[in-house]
């Protein structure tokens, strides 16, 4: 067979595709869980939050989070009637052991649980120089411990302060939305243990998920929408003073 230059030019893209396939290897078999059929997020129904700290404790027990570090935490806001733009915020021990009642009863007081916002356009994955953090096809921002250098770019990039460096492994760590649970059909540890249903795991690709009806009928916001992160943690009745 005579291979002319034209034949060779036609063959090159095919060879490229074939090579890419060799490099990709065979996809992992995941029984029952179809990665392309989910788009995970969370709903925080703020009027239901009682600041008990169950979510913080559950997260630490489920994910072996080191003491003094938090993948999720609860903040208490105190907004004075005379200065509603400058709330006082505290979170003793991340709210892990609840909150001692303040004597200051004037103004508005409420709790705000925080966690990774699972941004669809996440700043932390954009700055990672080695591809160690990424958005999974089902919409969860994860960290590859084997690849992470511990350079801390992502810790600085997160507008929500949701990342930290694990002192034991010296790699970046964050909420995985309990990826090991949600891929097995369970809900996250924080949602499982929230006694009032203030936290709910949502799957935006599931048409039967009650989140669709909830978003239509409630006043829902995300944190820092001006950052254009397209966060997927939705806060119901979020107060304007929350940063």
């Amino acid at each position: 067979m005579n291979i002319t230059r034209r034949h060779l030019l036609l063959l090159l893209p095919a060879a490229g595709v074939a090579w890419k396939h060799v490099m990709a290897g065979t996809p992992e078999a995941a029984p029952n869980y179809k990665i392309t059929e989910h788009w995970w997020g969370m709903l925080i129904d703020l009027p239901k939050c009682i600041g008990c700290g169950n979510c913080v404790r559950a997260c630490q027990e489920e994910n072996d989070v080191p003491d003094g570090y938090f993948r999720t935490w609860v903040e208490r806001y105190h907004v004075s009637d005379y200065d509603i733009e400058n709330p006082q915020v505290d979170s003793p021990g991340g709210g892990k052991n609840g909150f001692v009642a303040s004597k200051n009863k004037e103004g508005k007081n409420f709790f705000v649980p925080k966690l990774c916002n699972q941004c669809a356009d996440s700043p932390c994955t954009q700055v990672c120089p080695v591809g160690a953090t990424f958005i999974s096809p089902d919409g969860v921002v994860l960290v590859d411990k084997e690849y992470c250098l511990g350079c801390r770019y992502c810790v600085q990039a997160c507008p929500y302060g949701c990342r930290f460096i694990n002192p034991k492994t010296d790699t970046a760590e964050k909420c995985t939305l309990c990826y090991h649970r949600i891929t097995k059909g369970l809900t996250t540890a924080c949602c499982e243990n929230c006694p009032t249903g203030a936290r709910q795991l949502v799957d935006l690709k599931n048409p039967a998920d009650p989140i669709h009806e909830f978003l239509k009928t409630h006043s829902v916001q995300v944190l820092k929408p001006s950052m254009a992160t397209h966060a997927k943690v939705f806060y119901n009745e979020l107060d304007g003073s929350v940063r």
Partner: protein
Amino acid sequence: MNAFKNAGHLFRLAGVFLAGLMLFLTLRGFLVPKSFGQYGHYRGNSLSEVAARTVNFAGHQSCEACHSDVSDKKAKGKHALVNCEACHGPLAKHADDPSLQPAKLDTAMLCPRCHEANPAKPRTFPQVASAEHSTGLPCDTCHQPHSPVIGARAAK
């Protein structure tokens, strides 16, 4: 062929480049993990590695498989939406091996986690100042934790 008469040095140089390219591709083949680029610019296998973590909280579905008496009682009361492990703690080990008995709970410590009065809690949420309300007595002296009305009212 006249054009290539004095081009030997160019071919040698091209050979060096080709050898370099082959070395690069060979090294790349060894060093870049197979699953890199499977879904995007990251190691595809790290997804299954993250998902391989062990579960500590079994989930209320596991509890209800055996303890349906408690879940039936709970479903009728105020604590219907409170999942078992929210109070009982992580019990996946007990779910796997029921002979491992979980520790008994101290209601004097446990109930105030949620029900201790705090102005930041929603007003509709039932709250007490436990020091005045029960003077430190365990809450289950009067209340049934799984359906927390007081005995006489529960009979109604």
